[in-house]
């Protein structure tokens, strides 16, 4: 819905001859204590899995996040009882990894429940996540769109997959163009069944068009002209990750809070608010932590654009 608003506000701004202007400022911020930030998005692939532990930084501190060393990190597959120990990487700036011992060893399968335990800085944190299911991606297509009054000719990429029957499957769609993960805040794409959100009645069908084409990076050249998301020769890899409902809500909030194109769209922006977390301190009076834990099952497909 936000995208529609942006389109409208862009139009209005263009025609209303309103001379809005933006200035980068350097306001003073409250001085606060930093807390533990957990970045634990792992999956069912037989690959190295990484959990990052770092401290929050002052908002304008543009250095790399300070990693947290000496923590004990384990992930338990509650359904099978198997415990996976994540080992700190030396010089890894807070990275803790688990490497499968064989080419087939994985954390678990769909419907398995997982528990994350972190002992760090004298506190114990926990989090739970259930691995959801994910459909396979049937195909990727690149449609050549003729020049229109708004856009020059371009290739529009879409991924084709069908949400399995049963309400409540939630996904994170991630796209990699020529080895670059499309990871701007504006490129966060999540789905509830085959639609945007709960209550939308989009269960068990092909992903709806805006989600299907959410794998296109929209960029402008220096002179402001719109660039085709894909050109012949470019490659695209789409990864569909199952996420928990809590993670879906979390990423929705992250998108609202971080995707700030500025300009006239600020009229319609939501107030700044903290995004949620599913990391809790086992001691209710202990220091809090932020961040998220999700265990995904993943499907993916890649393709290269051929000239039309």
């Amino acid at each position, binding site marked *: 819905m936000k995208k529609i608003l942006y389109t409208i506000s862009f139009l209005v701004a263009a025609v209303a001859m309103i001379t*809005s202007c933006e200035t980068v400022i350097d306001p003073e911020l*409250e001085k606060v204590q930093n807390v533990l930030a957990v970045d634990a*998005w792992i999956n069912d692939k037989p690959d190295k899995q990484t959990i990052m532990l770092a401290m929050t930084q002052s*908002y304008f501190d*543009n250095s790399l996040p300070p990693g947290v060393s000496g923590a004990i990190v384990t992930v338990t597959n509650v359904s099978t009882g198997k415990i996976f120990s994540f080992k700190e990487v030396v010089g890894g700036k807070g990275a803790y990894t688990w490497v499968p011992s064989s080419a087939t060893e994985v954390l678990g399968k769909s419907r398995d429940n997982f528990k994350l335990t972190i002992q760090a800085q004298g506190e114990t944190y926990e989090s739970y996540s259930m691995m959801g299911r994910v459909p396979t991606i049937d195909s990727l297509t690149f449609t050549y769109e003729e020049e229109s009054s708004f856009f020059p000719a371009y290739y529009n990429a879409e991924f084709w997959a069908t949400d399995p029957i049963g309400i409540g499957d939630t996904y994170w769609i991630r796209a990699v163009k020529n080895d670059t993960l499309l990871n701007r805040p504006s490129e966060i794409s999540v789905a509830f069944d085959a639609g945007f959100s709960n209550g939308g009645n989009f269960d068990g069908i092909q992903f709806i*068009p805006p989600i299907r084409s959410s794998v296109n990076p929209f960029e402008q050249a220096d002179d402001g002209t719109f660039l085709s998301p894909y050109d012949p020769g470019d490659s695209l890899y789409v990864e569909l990750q199952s996420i928990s409902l809590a993670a879906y809500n979390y990423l929705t909030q992250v998108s609202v809070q971080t995707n700030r194109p*500025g300009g006239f769209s600020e*009229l319609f922006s939501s107030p700044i608010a903290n995004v949620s977390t599913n990391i809790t301190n086992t001691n209710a009076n202990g220091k809090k932590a932020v961040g998220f834990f999700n265990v995904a099952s993943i499907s993916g497909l890649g393709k290269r654009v051929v000239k039309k």
Partner: protein
Amino acid sequence: MRIFLLFLLCIPEFVLAQQKFTISGYVKDVSNGEVLIGVSILVKEMGVGATTNEYGFYSLTLPANTVTLQYSYIGYLNTTKTVSLTENLRQDIELTSEANQLEEVVIKDKEDQPTATNMDMSTNNLSISTITKIPTFMGEADVLRSLLLLPGVSTVGEGASGFNVRGGSVGQNLVLLDEAPVYNSSHLFGFFSVFNPDAVKDTKLYKGAIPSRYGGRLASLLDVRMKEGNSKKMEVNGGIGTVFSRLSVEAPIVKDKASFIVAARRSYIDVLARPFVELLQEGGALSFYDLTMKANYNISKKDRVYASGYFGRDRFMFDKQQGFSWGNATSTLRWNHLFNDKLFSNLTTVYSKYDYKLQFGDDERNKFSWNSSISNFIVKPDFSYFVNTSTEINFGGEAIYYSFEPANAVGVSEGETIDVSLEKKYNLEASLYAGSTQKVNSILSLDYGLRFSHFASYGPGTVYSYNDTIPGVRKTVTGEKTYDKGETIATYNNFQPRVSFKAQVTESSSIKGSYNRMVQYLHLISNTTASNPLDVWSPTSKNIKPELGDQFTLGYFKSLSGEQEYEFSAEAYYRATQNQIDYIDGADLLINRYLEGDLLAGKGRAYGIELYAQKKTGKINGWVSYTLGRTELQVNGINRGEWYPTRYNQTHNLKVAAFYDITKRWSVSADFVFSSGTPTTFPTSRYLQQGILIPYNVNDSRNNVTIPAYHRLDVSFRLEGKQYKGAKLRKNRDYWVFSFYNVYARKNPFSIYFSQSDERTLPGQPIDSQATQLSIIGTIIPSISYNFKF
């Protein structure tokens, strides 16, 4: 009904020492037959009086005698009538406007009723002549933008729809156009308002002490009354501006008996741009327009009917099918009937609708369309009984039937249609009220009343229940219940007492106070920085309680007359509210079946002091208004459960408006606005999550800082066209307006937002963060308009 009877019993019965007769009638403008609202009629011998109501009617019951009546109204010459009261008398009066006088006539002795002596408090009147003098944005005189210069009225910034009154939200104002509710009062987001100044007669803003005949919103009532149309001769008004062109025609249908007015406005940027923009030739549109109409007919001395309507639309279309449009439509039918000289009645019926439509995708197999609307039918009988010179009773009722379409949304994906529409909602709000204005003695006057309202929501419908939640975490659905057509889902009843008093301390000064309870059953669901056309109104339901507000006001009023007339007032207000709506972090407000689960309810309080000084006469006139205020909410789950200021909180708010006649033809006006910055939330910290930089406030604060202050100066020059052609007076009048908005080109902050840099960063590279201050208007905006009348 019992309440009414109680009321009637409360009225003191005066012993009739002498036979009494009633003198009543309408007061009109002699030049065009428009009835005049708020004319004061003074019985010179007795020092008592009356004022005309919204339909220009007055009634005075006096002992049989010969009396001298003085009719006075701001901007008009006083008229005095001596009558011998030996029977009930009908006395219709026509007053002459100062503007219609030849300039040689110097008007002195003007005695319109100053605020210090009438019952009004917490109200502001803006005459259309003042509105057209205030410097404009893009050359367009605008009712809502003019209101922003009054004490207690504010906005969060340029481009924001609506206005805030005494710390109330935009959705807490009831905006009535000829008694019809207007749900979105703005064109082009918030830059212009929907009221065509050529068709507006009178605007009155009630910020408190709201009479019992009105209800439905917590913060204010804006009562906009349209002109009836010239009943003497044909009149054409028009203007060509930078954004709009406007034209209005008014004329008698039957002289002095029936007349009409039709007024239209249209923006024409798209018309001018059409030859150059391909999009517009292919069916695209970028425009807004409105049409205002009214007709009235004096059936007899006792009956008059009015029909009025408004239709307006904003359209932003990419092509014939794709785009976005919204607008209001209202129609009002009214019947004034005099049962006798003392009992005036008005029956109003209203249909009004606000809707918006969106459509994307021009391919039949892949498209998305969405529309939403709120429509209502209103019946409102209202009676005024003029008991005697010291007592007036007002009673009546109001029934509003609402029909909501929160979203009719249909998506077509590869030929497969998916309907994500939300259920319609049906509601009834029925009210009864009675009130009395009573002059107890020469010092004390009282106005007291009671309004009872009943609100019901009816099926068909589904009600979801939600779990309780840890504050700040989204709720989940725990159950649902389906209701059949016509089945009552939820009902609420509320008594709303309204009391105000005036103590006339001296002849020219008074103290006034009031207590009001207001109830609001409709809620504007909006969590964006500024309200916008996609905002949805949601009715009170099983899960959403009605908003309640209790406001107390106390004020001191002083008038100085003599060579120069001045008015001063100081008012303090305190409003406590319950069931104020705020939103769970991450709330999804559009096309969300479980919307009610994303809402939070809390308490609110707003308080402040308003100071106002006006110089009413002389070559230089104008006013200064200052408001010191605070408005806060306390909602479990936000700001650690502690009080926090609302987005539209402004500590200081100063406005100056000045008008100066340089020569007979040139005049200049200026306004200056200063307001403290509005609150916003700043993060304290940042962290990374899968390569995305996330802002974080460790203290969980809401609105913990304020953005820099806002100030702006506007100036406008007006050049009257020549009034004489040789020695002959021209029939046509015209004038030019040259206005300069934001004269010293201040880049006023609208908001400050935090974001990560737009560059793509490689894994392992640090990400830059920044804060950006946005100004919606950062330069001076000059404009010209030409206006004519013939």
